[in-house]
C-alpha cells in the first residue's frame, strides 16, 4: 500500500518536541509563529504528506488575490531537537491524517511531547496582556508545565482538529498540550504581533531557543499608535475601546463596527 507521505531525509533526533500549527489560523497566529521559528532557527524540510490522500482537488482556493495550494510539511532542527509541522487542515480522512503525523513524529523523530498552537478571538482590549490558554492530554504534563504562565482552559462544545490530535496522542501515551493564544476579536483578521510574541516567548523559555523578539516590540508599538490615533479621530471607536477596558462587553453591532474600523485601519 502506498505510504501517505514522502520524505527527503531522516533527521537525527532523540526525545524531540513536535510543534503543530494550522494555516488559516485566527490572527494568522500559527503560520506567523512557525514561519518565524523556521526562519530564525534555519529549520530544514524533511517530509511532506501526500496531498491527494487528504484533500479534494476540485480546483484551488484563492486567498488574498493569490492561488492557495494546500501544504503539509515537516521541518526539523537537530540542534534544538525540534520538529515543526505546518499544514492546512485536511478535507477528509482526518483520522488517517492525524495518525500519520504522529507516526512520522514518533518513528522518524522520536518525539516525546506534542505542542499545538492556535489563536482564538476574545472580547478584551488590545492594551491588555495576551494570555495563553492550555489544554493537556495528561495531568502529569500539566504539572510539568506549571510555571510557564499558561492559563487552564475550560470548555465544552465543538472540538478543533488540535483537540482530536491531542486525544489521539493520549491514546499512544504521548504527552501533549494545545496552546490557545488569546487575541482581541477586532484583530482576528490581522496578525497580532503581541500575540505572536507571547507564543514565541513561551517556546523560547520552554526550549531555551534564545530568540531575539525585539523586532516585535516595534510592530506592537506601531499597531498601538495607529489604534490610538483612530481613537482620537473617532469618538465612537474610543467609546467602544473604553467599554472593553472597563471589562464591559460590546453588543454584536458594536463589535462589528469596531472590527470593521480596525480592519480598514490596519490593512492600509
Amino acid at each position, binding site marked *: 500500500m502506498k505510504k501517505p507521505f514522502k520524505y527527503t531525509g531522516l533527521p537525527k533526533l532523540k526525545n524531540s518536541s513536535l510543534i503543530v500549527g494550522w494555516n488559516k489560523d485566527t490572527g494568522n497566529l500559527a503560520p506567523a509563529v512557525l514561519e518565524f521559528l523556521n526562519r530564525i532557527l534555519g529549520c530544514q524540510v524533511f517530509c511532506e504528506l501526500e496531498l491527494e490522500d487528504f484533500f479534494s482537488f476540485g480546483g484551488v482556493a484563492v486567498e488574498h488575490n493569490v492561488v492557495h495550494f494546500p501544504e503539509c510539511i515537516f521541518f526539523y532542527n537537530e540542534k534544538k531537537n525540534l520538529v515543526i509541522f505546518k499544514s492546512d487542515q485536511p478535507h*477528509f480522512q*482526518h*483520522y488517517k491524517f492525524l495518525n500519520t503525523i504522529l507516526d512520522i513524529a514518533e518513528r522518524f523523530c522520536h518525539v516525546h511531547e506534542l505542542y499545538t498552537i492556535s489563536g482564538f478571538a476574545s472580547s478584551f482590549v488590545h492594551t491588555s496582556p495576551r494570555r495563553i490558554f492550555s489544554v493537556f492530554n495528561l495531568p502529569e504534563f500539566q504539572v510539568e508545565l506549571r510555571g510557564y504562565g499558561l492559563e487552564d*482552559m475550560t470548555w*465544552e462544545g*465543538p472540538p*478543533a482538529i488540535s483537540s482530536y490530535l491531542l486525544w489521539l496522542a493520549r491514546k499512544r501515551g504521548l504527552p501533549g498540550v494545545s496552546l490557545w493564544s488569546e487575541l482581541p476579536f477586532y484583530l482576528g483578521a490581522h496578525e497580532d504581533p503581541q500575540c505572536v510574541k507571547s507564543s514565541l516567548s513561551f517556546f523560547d523559555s520552554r526550549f531555551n531557543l534564545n530568540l531575539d523578539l525585539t523586532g516585535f516590540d516595534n510592530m506592537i508599538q506601531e499597531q498601538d499608535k495607529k489604534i490610538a490615533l483612530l481613537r482620537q479621530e473617532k469618538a465612537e471607536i474610543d467609546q467602544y475601546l473604553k467599554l472593553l477596558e472597563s471589562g464591559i462587553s460590546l453588543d454584536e453591532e458594536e463589535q462589528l463596527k469596531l472590527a470593521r474600523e480596525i480592519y480598514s485601519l490596519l490593512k492600509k
Partner: protein
Amino acid sequence: MGIKLHKHPRLKSPIMIVGWPGIGNIGLIAVDTLRELAKAEELGEIESYEFFLPSKVVIKSGILEELEFPTNKFYFRRIEGKDLIFFIGEEQPRKQPTSDYAEGEEAYRMAHLVLDVAEKFGCQRVYTSGAAVSLMHHTMRSRVWAVPNTERLIKEIKQYSNTIVMSEIEGRGGQGHITGLNGLLLGVAKKRGIDGICLMGEIPIYLQGLPIIYPKASKSVLDVFSDILGIDIDLSQFEKTAQKAEKNIEKFYSQIPSEMRSQLEKLKEIYHLEPTEIKPMTEKNRKKLWEEISDFLKKEGKGDEEAI
C-alpha cells in the same frame, strides 16, 4: 479498534435490523422506535473515532476530559420467541463532510464490522431501512419499497402488506439505486452469504430536501416489520410525533405558491397505479411535471434531483 461487545448473550438465529440517518430519517426512526418499544438492551458498539470527526470536546481545568464521537451501537432482545439484534448508527461515515451519504473505504469497512457482529451471533437475515423518494403526494399513505439481496426473497416480500418491489414501480423496470450504507450493507451481506432486505418508506419528492422527519413513512416501515416479526406494535406514542410532523408539513405545503401547489396536487393522480392500469397521465406529462417540480425545488434551494 473495531467492535466492543459489552455482553455475550446466547442468541438463536437472530434477525438484525439496522438503522442509519438519511432522507427524513425514515429508516432510523422506524428502527429506533422498534428498538425502544422492544426495550432492547445494549450489546456493544463499533468504535467511532476512526470513522467520524468528533462532535464534542469536554475540557475541564486545562485537561482534555472527553472527546465525543457519533455512536454506533448494537442492542438485543427476544420478542415472541424471536431474537433480534438492532444496530443504530448516529451518522454514516462520509468521505467528505459535504457528502450526503456513506461512500468509499470507510463505509465498506463499517458495513463489514456490522456484519461481523451479525455473523458472530449467527444472524441469517439483515434488514436495512431508508427512504424512497417518490412522485407521491403527502396526503397519501406511504408504501414501502423492498429490495432483497437475493431473488429468492422476492416471493416472500410480495406477501408483506403495503409493500412493492422495484418492478412494480411505474417507469423503473425493476432498476434503481440504494444510496449509502442501507444499500452497501446488503451488497456486502450478499457477498458474505447473508440474506438481506432493504425496506424504504416513501417520501414525496418535494419534501426530500427539507430538514424534516417524515413519520408517515416510518410508520409504514414499522407496519411491515410488524408483519415480518408477527408482532403487534403499539404506536400510540409514535402517532403523537407523527401528527406534529404532519402539521409542519401542511404548513410548508400551504406556503408553496398556488400555481406550483396545483401542479403538486396532480401527484395524487399518478400515485398507486398498477403498471397495467390505464394511466391518466402520459409519460410525457409525467416528465414535464417532474421538470417543473425540479425547477421549483432548485429555485427554493431545497431539492436534490440526484437523489431520485
